[in-house]
């Protein structure tokens, strides 16, 4: 039950990001969550959108280097320790976290966290056993 995340390579040049968001706008893509990993020369833009496959096609059309990656989405209580508990569960099971980003829900007091791990199946199993809510893809896409 993994979430499809769109990653796009962006050169560290003026207008790079705007070009990407323009292309998404043209394809009527709605962004749910966004994070960027940046270095001196380039950045990797990561996006959760309402229609990942359509967004991927739009990126390809516009000649961007983009890829879809399966990530885990969890919902944790929006209170101190909400995230810490989930990360402890993963650490105890020796699941490695590659990157992570989070955003607040609009309705309930829930924080949504996107995690890229090295073992999706293993991570899902231990999180579920610990009672942590795994997000269904549609939940995020249709927010």
């Amino acid at each position, binding site marked *: 039950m993994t979430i499809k995340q769109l990653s796009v390579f962006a050169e560290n040049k003026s207008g790079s990001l705007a070009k990407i968001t323009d292309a998404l706008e043209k394809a009527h893509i709605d962004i749910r969550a966004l994070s960027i990993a*940046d270095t001196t020369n*380039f950045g*990797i833009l990561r996006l959760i959108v309402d229609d990942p496959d359509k967004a991927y096609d739009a990126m390809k059309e516009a*000649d961007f280097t983009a890829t879809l*990656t399966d990530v885990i989405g969890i919902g944790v209580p929006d209170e101190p320790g909400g995230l810490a508990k989930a990360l402890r569960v993963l650490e105890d099971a020796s699941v490695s976290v590659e990157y992570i980003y989070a955003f607040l829900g609009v309705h309930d007091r829930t924080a949504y966290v996107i995690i890229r791990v090295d073992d999706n199946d293993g991570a899902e199993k231990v999180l579920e056993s610990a009672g942590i809510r795994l997000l269904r893809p549609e939940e995020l896409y249709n927010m």
Partner: protein
Amino acid sequence: MDRTFSEIETAPRHEIRALQSLRLSQMIRRVYDRVPLYRQRLDEAGIKPDDIRSVDDLPKLPFTYKQDLRDSYPYGLFAVDRSELREIHASSGTTGKQTVVGYSANDLKVWGEMAARALVAAGADKTDYVHVSYGYGLFTGGLGLHYGANTLGASVIPVSSGNTARQIQILRDFGSTILCCTPSYAAYIGETMRDMGVKPSDISLKAGIFGAEPWTESMRVQIEELLGIKAYDIYGLSEVMGPGVSYECSAQSGMHINEDHFIPEIIDPETGEVLPEGEEGELVFTCITKEALPLIRYRTRDVASLSYEPCSCGRTFVKMKKPAGRTDDMLIIRGVNVFPSQIESVLLTQPGVTPNYQIIVDRAGTLDTMEVLVELSPEAAFDTVRLVEQREKALRAAIESTLGIAVKISLVAPKSIERSEGKAKRVIDKRNI
């Protein structure tokens, strides 16, 4: 009149020419008998060895190209058998295949003499300490000047390249008087000395012989100031012999070609027509005394011109202008020959990238730098910086092992390398040489 190593350097023109004609006719007979490719080419052109009696007959002969050496890799054009082959060298070639050259015992003796002539033209004699900072190995630079020093009877210090602090320590302690290396390395040594607080008066250098890459008059002035020496030019290419094909004298207005061993011509690179004195064109050499790899009218792809004007140094050998460029796309970076097409062939074997690249060559201080921009393939899958860095690292390793020099790799977005009229501009050379 300057001192020369060999008497023939100041012989009258008609004597030189007569010697060339004799040697040329002997050479053609020899390669016809021993080198299958040349027998085939001469037969195809309807030329028999006896048809070649003088230098005037040179234009009748077919050209030899670098591709011929590549196609006959490694030893297909050699005219001696193994027992007579004393030494093998190689230079960089395209698609990772090197250009292989060979030397008989006599070839090595001649090479030593040619390089000795260059050393004497720079003012060296038996009492000098010749500090060789060209790389030793398959590259002909190091051993070429080494043999020259041996032949002259000078004291050679075979330092090879690199470890600049140690180079300077040797210059100070071992009393080096003649420095042989690439001009950019000489400038680098000079700047390092200045940064270390070592003055030209702290070392014993009086002159240097610099080659293997193009350099300007302003670089010469810079080197002379930094090291407190007179800086002389030297020219050569492995296929013809190595360093010492031609060398600068005290007049410093061109390089004297060792015509008793190499007959030069300037041709129009498009038509192959031989051009008159003073006109610029492609430099071609015929190796009339080489035993292991004698080449007929080898096209160097260097652009130069010839002058038979009398020289103040007293030498009567023809002078060539310093090469003004190439007829192909070869670059020389830190003394190493680099063909942009080598990069393309590496990229075709690498995942995640297209064969679209751009080379940016610059000079940081005195050393050349090379950055290769490579366009990512839209299919490349990167969701982390780590994956991009891994790809860059793998690409850098592949390119460095093919080119033989360290480069910087920058991955760029698809279609971001400028194209004009449909063709990408492959090389941006920001150096002022």
